[in-house]
């Protein structure tokens, strides 16, 4: 072991020169796992407007990214798909606690929602959440214990049921349990569920973020699948933040801010929309309105009283999710 350490530090020493030579014409954006193409285009657009700068990209699950940043991954900005993972950075002092005031729309430049993808022609006639409890419908989404994507699905279904059954907890639980009973296989992540639905051809409807359904149809055939937008769904924000501890150290705050501001410009909004995300810019939203059918969105704050409460009531060990999941 001593040998390892010695060699390790020697190599590290040799590389230290190059590694510490950061300058503010370069930032690192730590992002979620399926955003590679989106940010490839965003960065192309940004660099065209600001020649001579470099934006490095890191992609992985955002919980892993948050942990890596706390352990020393020097990301200047984070572009996540989970607010709770930015909260983790706040708790560890890497991001200021009023980060949601730094940029418009609570620092969420674009958004999405759990939506449906069905096979061509929609043979089972699936239109809304109440179709998912039918005995003849098989539903595919990942395991909510391991996948953030599926947690949104669980919350969206719960939000629908709360409205439909006037907040009757027993009826809500029964409704959501029925949906879970219709899931033949719980994969660990969104990508694995896509494989189950698309390549193994299991199930009648895949529930995932609307932004994902665009990519799935592009890769596996626009004519093989159809997007179905339910009557109501849950707002899924894509929060962005400046990592204060890193930008202060590297003196890159201005660059980081200008980069995240770019996501709110018409050009940035257009790129986000092209990749299947809904945007707030009215002109751009109007341009893409055929792609994004009207839907009523509820928020975690309105229906569930915020993420900390959701965590405590639903996702904590022994919580409502466990009770429903355990009954299976």
């Amino acid at each position, binding site marked *: 072991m001593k040998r*390892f350490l010695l*060699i*390790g530090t020697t190599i590290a020493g040799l590389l230290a020169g190059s590694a*510490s030579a950061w300058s503010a014409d370069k930032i690192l954006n730590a992002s979620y796992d399926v955003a590679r193409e989106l940010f490839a285009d965003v960065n192309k657009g940004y660099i065209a407007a600001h020649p001579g700068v470099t934006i*490095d990209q890191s*992609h992985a699950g955002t919980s892993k990214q948050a942990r*890596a940043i706390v*352990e020393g991954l020097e990301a200047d900005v984070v572009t996540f798909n989970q607010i709770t993972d930015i909260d983790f950075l706040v708790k560890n002092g890497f991001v200021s606690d009023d980060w949601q005031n730094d940029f418009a729309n609570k620092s969420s430049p674009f958004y999405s929602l759990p939506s449906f993808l069905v096979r061509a022609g929609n043979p089972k006639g699936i239109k809304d959440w109440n179709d998912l409890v039918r005995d003849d419908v098989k539903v595919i989404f990942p395991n909510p214990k391991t996948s953030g994507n599926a947690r949104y699905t669980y919350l969206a279904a719960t939000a629908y049921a709360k409205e439909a059954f006037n907040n009757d907890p027993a009826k809500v639980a029964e409704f959501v349990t029925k949906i879970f009973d219709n899931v033949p296989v719980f994969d660990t992540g969104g990508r694995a569920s896509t494989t189950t639905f698309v390549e193994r051809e299991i199930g009648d409807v895949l529930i995932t973020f609307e932004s994902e359904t665009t990519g799935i149809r592009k890769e596996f055939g626009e004519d093989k699948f159809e997007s179905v937008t339910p009557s109501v769904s849950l707002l899924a924000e894509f929060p962005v933040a400046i990592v204060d501890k890193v930008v202060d150290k590297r003196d890159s705050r201005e660059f980081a801010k200008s980069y995240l501001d770019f996501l709110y410009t018409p050009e940035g909004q257009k790129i986000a929309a092209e990749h299947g995300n809904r945007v707030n810019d009215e002109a751009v939203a109007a341009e893409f309105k055929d792609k994004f059918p009207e839907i009523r969105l509820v928020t975690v704050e309105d229906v569930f009283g915020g993420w900390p409460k959701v965590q405590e009531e639903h996702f904590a060990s022994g919580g409502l999710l466990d009770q429903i999941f355990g009954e299976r």
Partner: protein
Amino acid sequence: MAATRSKKPPRVGDHPIFRLGLLAAVLVLTALVVVAPLVVIGVQAFSAGADVFVATITDADTRHAIFLTVATALIAVPINTVFGVAAAWAITKFDFTGKRLLLIVIEIPFSISPIVAGVAYLFVYGLQGVFGPALEAAEIKVLFALPGIVLASMFVTAPFVARELIPLMQAQGRDLEEAATSLGASGWRTFFSVTLPNVRWALLYGVVLCNARVMGEFGAVSVVSGNIRGQTNTLPLHVELLYHDYQTAGAFAAASILALLAVVTLFAKVLLERQGAGRAGRPALAAPQTIKTETLT
């Protein structure tokens, strides 16, 4: 064949049906478990056309991933080779207290899941870890940079060379080394002229295994790499990234490069063995070689 068989009494497993069955089982299993996935990688890599394949492997990020994977192997494999030879030599040719313990410690990476190794490195070198703050103060980056990737790869593959050498060197015993020493050879001379030539094929095999594992390592590297495209994304991580991005053809194209690297390593091994065998086959050298193999068995 039939004549030879009829002379001897039949042994267990000598029946043709048994032999054919065994052979068929091996062939079918090999086809299903080894050949089929390799063929699928090749076919899928070109499924979207040769232009997608070329576009993927000429992409700057893919090229960097290939470079990084090869660079990691070029650093980690030689270090682990020296370490493995030294460890095997110490354990088999000398007696010292703590020998058994050393043997167990060397094997630990075999029994630990790579992801655990990665997380352990995070807790040792991470900002919240043991050495993290000191490294940060000295502006030395270990995690989320090349050193971290090399360290994690080295940890996972540390036992490979030693584990290949130790059983062979134990079987060979110390007679030849003792003879060499009694004839006045120095320690270095004994090692390079007696010990090393006797184990060279096992060593080569260990190096090949080690190299294949370094290039293919995913779990441990995934934790400490930081996944920065074009900087700390190794080829296996790049395959995952492309796959997550619904770039199936691209993911398989990158995977085929990974498979190709492994095949090149194997060919290098076969080529080296051939050359070695050719030299050994010459009459002048044949005699001492036979003596050595006899000692071996």
